[in-house]
């Protein structure tokens, strides 16, 4: 049993100088066989394991992670959470996640610092205005809160934005989802890991998958750096390395892995109390609780697994940031990093069975998977446990690239997630 985190446990542990806290998760060696193995110990993978154990009573399962949990894209994103997607299928998927976010800290007994500070998307030309209005209507028909703001209302909601109409890409309006916001990314991984561990899930770190053993049309197990693990069900949640794992199993995915960059500034006093995204000029910004500006840049256009990215991508984003927020002109940037994102042709994820029995893929989240973490884990666990997709992820099957029934958020919603 895990000790409950509370104000009292905090006080109690203060007496022993916080040196005797119970371990949040064990550090086990892999068993010979599991009922299911999740490849990838990021937020989505750990959430999948958590819901498999909690809702589907599969306790004899493992999460294998090649380095440490939450060290990939889970710890590298800009933590934006929203559900204002255009198409019904996406709206269902992302709002399912948003509803879980709203009570996640209580459920996990782990403060994920979910903050519904609102997300505002800006329009910079007439087509943006039309698209965002259309999206607002579509959102409201799907029961997702959304309002359209004119330029004055944008300025009122976030006063530091330059709404002068003389700039290269003037602000013509925007949309606002008030239920949207941010969360603490590391806490999400750690909270799910702690919860899964409590129910008996083995979280095996520093264990890289080297091969997938198949017997005809079904899976038999995985070869890892810690030996062979036998299993009949494999859920792959490997983000940028999904194609690498798929290749081991002898299947192909419609993915391209590209570097996506983000950066933070030196910490300053509170200046922006919401999240502002602009797809047209590709700049989005929020402020962390530490006071750093958190800025998301774009992807490079070539395939790379280096977790770096080109300098001019960052430069382009900062140009846009400075035009929209002249007040930031003397801010110094503190850190910059990259993550490898797996991008689908239609910019929608894949949560699906494959042609190999017992092999499931949760991938293709591209530049915007963090917001979906709890929903993705819940639906993927359902898919693995029942060998059938949940109705909310039926549209996100792998077969859509053959049938042509794509969920085209790329053209419809925006480039940024």
């Amino acid at each position: 049993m895990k000790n409950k985190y509370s104000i009292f446990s905090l006080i109690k542990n203060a007496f022993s100088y916080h040196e005797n806290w119970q371990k949040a998760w064990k550090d086990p060696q892999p068993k010979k066989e599991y009922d299911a193995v999740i490849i990838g110990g990021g937020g989505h993978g750990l959430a999948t394991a958590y819901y498999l154990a909690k809702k589907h009573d599969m306790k004899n399962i493992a999460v294998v992670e090649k380095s440490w949990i939450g060290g990939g894209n889970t710890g590298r994103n800009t933590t934006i959470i929203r559900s204002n997607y255009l198409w019904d299928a996406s709206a269902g998927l992302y709002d399912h996640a948003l509803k879980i976010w709203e009570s996640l800290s209580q459920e996990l007994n782990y403060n994920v610092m979910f903050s519904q500070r609102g997300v505002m998307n800006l329009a910079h030309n007439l087509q943006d205005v039309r698209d965002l209005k259309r999206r607002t209507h579509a959102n409201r028909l799907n029961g997702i809160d959304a309002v359209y703001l004119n330029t004055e209302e944008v300025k009122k909601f976030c006063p530091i934005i330059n709404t002068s109409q003389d700039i290269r890409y003037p602000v013509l309006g925007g949309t606002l989802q008030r239920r949207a916001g941010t969360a603490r990314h590391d806490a999400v991984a750690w909270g799910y890991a702690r919860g899964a561990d409590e129910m008996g899930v083995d979280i095996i770190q520093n264990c890289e998958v080297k091969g997938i053993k198949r017997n005809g049309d079904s899976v038999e197990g995985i070869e890892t750096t810690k030996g062979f693990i036998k299993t009949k069900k494999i859920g792959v949640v490997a983000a940028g390395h999904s194609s690498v794992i798929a290749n081991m199993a002898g299947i192909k995915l419609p993915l391209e892995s590209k570097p996506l960059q983000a950066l933070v500034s030196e910490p300053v006093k509170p200046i922006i109390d919401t999240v502002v995204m602009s797809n047209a000029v590709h700049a989005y910004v929020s402020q962390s609780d530490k006071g750093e500006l958190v800025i998301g840049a774009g992807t490079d256009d070539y395939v790379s697994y280096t977790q770096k990215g080109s300098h001019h991508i960052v430069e382009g984003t900062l140009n846009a940031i400075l035009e929209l927020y002249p007040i930031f002109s003397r801010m110094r940037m503190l850190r910059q990093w990259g993550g490898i994102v797996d991008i689908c042709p239609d910019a929608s994820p894949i949560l699906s069975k494959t042609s190999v029995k017992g092999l499931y893929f949760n991938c293709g989240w591209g530049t915007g998977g963090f917001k979906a973490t709890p929903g993705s884990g819940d639906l993927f666990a359902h898919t693995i446990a029942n060998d059938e997709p949940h109705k909310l992820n039926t549209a996100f099957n792998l077969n859509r690239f053959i049938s042509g029934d794509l969920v085209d958020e790329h053209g419809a919603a925006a480039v940024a997630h």
Partner: protein
Amino acid sequence: MFLINCPYCGERDQQEFKAGGEAHIKRPKQPTELSDDEWAEYLFMRKNIKGVQFERWNHAHGCRKWFNMVRDTSNDEIKATYKMGEKPPAQ
């Protein structure tokens, strides 16, 4: 990966180029004969290799010509560039 050796112009800054994805994907000779699976393979499925991969690039802000590149995606090292239609160099 900051300099790219365009087979027509020589070494230029990376910013002058656009990546065009996986190279040597054969356009179907008889599109009307293709099954849905074959269309999906041609249009969407990609090798997305971690390691040495063959790619198409375009010198967009230069000679505007397309060419091929051999590149290691695990460290962004460019192994070779060669013109369209030429045989890829042995790796």
